[in-house]
């Protein structure tokens, strides 16, 4: 392995690591606030670029129907709160209308934004419809629910978009040369977004009242409730943030990696490995873990490509072992 190959692999590992880092951030955020391991995060990531690809082809994406019907179901559940229910119904109708416009000759950048907008309500709606009805669920119950949702969303993805891949156009086309290393310009957009997301989350959690409330929920749900914070609402906000980051990440990375209905799970799983390296509580450690996963994957694909996944997931074992040794005293569930 000479220097050129080394630097190529480094660039590739960083690129993949950044994608995993974005997913790991979302997983940590959702887990800390709601105790849900959001397995279908990868699907939420995949829905956006595929919807975009369909909109560009002038087709109405099935995700708009899914999103709208989830909002309607939410409105039915909350029918006692009339104003909220009406707002949700209005939002559902608005989404369908916008998606119709998007598939009938809206300009490309509008379609881009629409694809993100269509996916956004799915996050909080998922929380409201499936997790909120079980306020006292354990981590295990939530995990089982999340795995089920992953299969449902993936199946719906196959129905909406078919089995083949799509490659939406990038925001920045062409390549830039970094020394002898050619990098697609789009990669820099991904890096910029990752930095922005991290900075945004940092400011959100340290400066804003909402962020502080979310942190309070993460630390102690009961205490937060006593001080007047609604944990359900905190959960919805956490899901919304995670979905927003996932959807935009999906839009940005799809031109680099080709999007397909099956891409979400493996990306999410590697994000999860990264999150576990950070114990699912620490954001900086999750990001660090994601970079480790990305680099390990990149170098092992050079050395032993047939065993690449095995090597990456084998990383989980020592980490879990080390974690379980350290956290023996934390046995039960809170509340």
């Amino acid at each position, binding site marked *: 392995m000479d220097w050129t190959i080394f630097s190529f*692999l480094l660039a*590739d590992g960083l690129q*993949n690591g950044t994608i995993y880092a974005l997913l790991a951030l979302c997983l940590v955020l959702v887990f800390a606030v709601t105790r849900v391991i959001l397995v279908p995060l990868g699907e939420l990531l995949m829905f956006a670029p595929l919807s975009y690809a369909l909109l560009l082809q002038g087709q109405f994406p099935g995700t708009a129907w899914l999103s709208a019907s989830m909002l309607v179901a939410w409105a039915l559940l909350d029918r006692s709160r009339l104003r909220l229910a009406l707002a949700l119904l209005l939002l559902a109708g608005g989404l369908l209308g916008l998606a119709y416009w998007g598939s009938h000759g809206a300009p490309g950048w509008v379609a881009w934004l629409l694809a993100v907008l269509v996916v956004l309500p799915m996050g909080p709606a998922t929380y409201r419809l499936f997790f909120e009805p079980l306020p006292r669920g354990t981590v295990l119950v939530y995990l089982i629910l999340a795995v089920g949702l992953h299969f449902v969303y993936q199946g719906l993805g196959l129905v909406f978009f078919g089995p083949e891949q799509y490659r939406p156009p990038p925001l920045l086309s062409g390549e830039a040369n970094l020394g002898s290393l050619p990098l697609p310009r789009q990669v820099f957009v991904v890096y910029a977004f990752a930095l922005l997301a991290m900075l945004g989350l940092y400011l959100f959690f340290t400066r804003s009242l909402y962020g502080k409330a979310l942190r309070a929920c993460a630390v102690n749900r009961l205490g937060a409730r006593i001080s007047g914070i609604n944990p359900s609402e905190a959960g919805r906000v956490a899901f919304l943030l995670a979905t927003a980051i996932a959807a935009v990440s999906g839009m940005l990375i799809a031109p680099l990696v080709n999007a397909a209905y099956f*891409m979400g799970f493996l990306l999410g799983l590697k994000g999860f490995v990264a999150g576990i390296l950070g114990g699912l509580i620490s954001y900086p450690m999750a990001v660090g873990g994601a970079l480790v996963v990305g680099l390990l994957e990149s170098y092992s694909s050079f050395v032993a*490509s047939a065993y*690449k996944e095995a090597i990456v997931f084998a990383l989980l074992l020592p980490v879990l072992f080390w974690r379980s040794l350290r956290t023996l005293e934390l046995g039960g569930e809170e509340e």
Partner: protein
Amino acid sequence: MKRWFFLLVAALGLALSQQPAPLKIGVVVSATGPAASLGIPEKNTFLLLEEEANKRGVAGRRVQFIILDDASDTTQAVRSTRKLIQEDGVLAIIGTTTTPASLGMIDVVAEAKVPMISLAASKSIIAPVDAKRSWVFKTPQTEELMARAIIADMKERGVKSVAYIGFNDAYGEGWWTFFSQEAKEGGLNVVASERYARTDTSVTGQILKIIAARPDAVLIGASGTPAVLPQRTLNERGYKGLIYQTHGVANPDFLRVGGKDVEGTLLPAGPILVAEQLPSGFPSKRPALDYITRYETKFGIGSYSTFGAHAYDAWLILRPALERALKNANPDNLTAFRAALRDELEATKNVVASHGVFNYSKDDHLGLRFQDTAVMVQVQNGRWKLVRTFR
């Protein structure tokens, strides 16, 4: 008045019951699920065939295709096969689309002694022809035949060293087995063998290793749109040699996703992919064009695919076998007729179909020669262009 009516109804009923029961053929395809892009044209082909077969009938009898969907799932395929055999009493089974599910069906048809024609690719479905596989035939080309065509083309172009990158599943391994074997026999030097997953988002590591080995040509053992990724990475990293793909990419989605990155790709394909470009003496030209015209008349211009043609070929083989079997056996005696039909299938000789010329024998249940069944195709200006035949 009333009595007349009853008499009329009775007479009509009698007349209807006199007509022999239709010849039931069971069909299992993956009309939904991940293999649907292959299974849907196959299903459409049978809808088309049923209409046409009943215009003339087979030896004067009606044909009924009972089409079941296996949702690209092995368990479902096996269950459907059982149902077709036990509840519907079919004479033969055609299907299914995918290799794993077809392998699962072998036990069922062998146990019930029903002949089956698979529409899946792998050689393991029909080889070796043992007690169980004596009931199983198939129409699509195997990796072995296509690998032979690739090696022949590589030698023609003066390639000395080759590298391989393929899926880390049965598809990639199957291609690696036959490709490395044929390459060795052809005197080529295989300098690298790499794997990647269908779901991978990056293959930089593997491609760098391949480029470092400096091969004259690279074969990508992948199918569908995930086959684009290695080729794109090869281009991005400045590889200038020849790039070969397998016939698993011969669908429009590959061209759509690949765009400029797949220009110049060489691949072996069934002749039907470039039917109108074939030389006039090529045996499959007529049946292929025939199929395309009929399919497009019913389902729209540009709707046909090479996968549906495998189903068409299965019927081109089954139909004369049925006619021959009907001369000596009575389809009301299911067991005897199925056995007779199997023997007649094995006696298939010189059936000129859309993907080649089929000659079944006791130890060959594919019966294709690569010279008739594979042509080299190149992607030029986003279209499939015939570059050579091997005849």
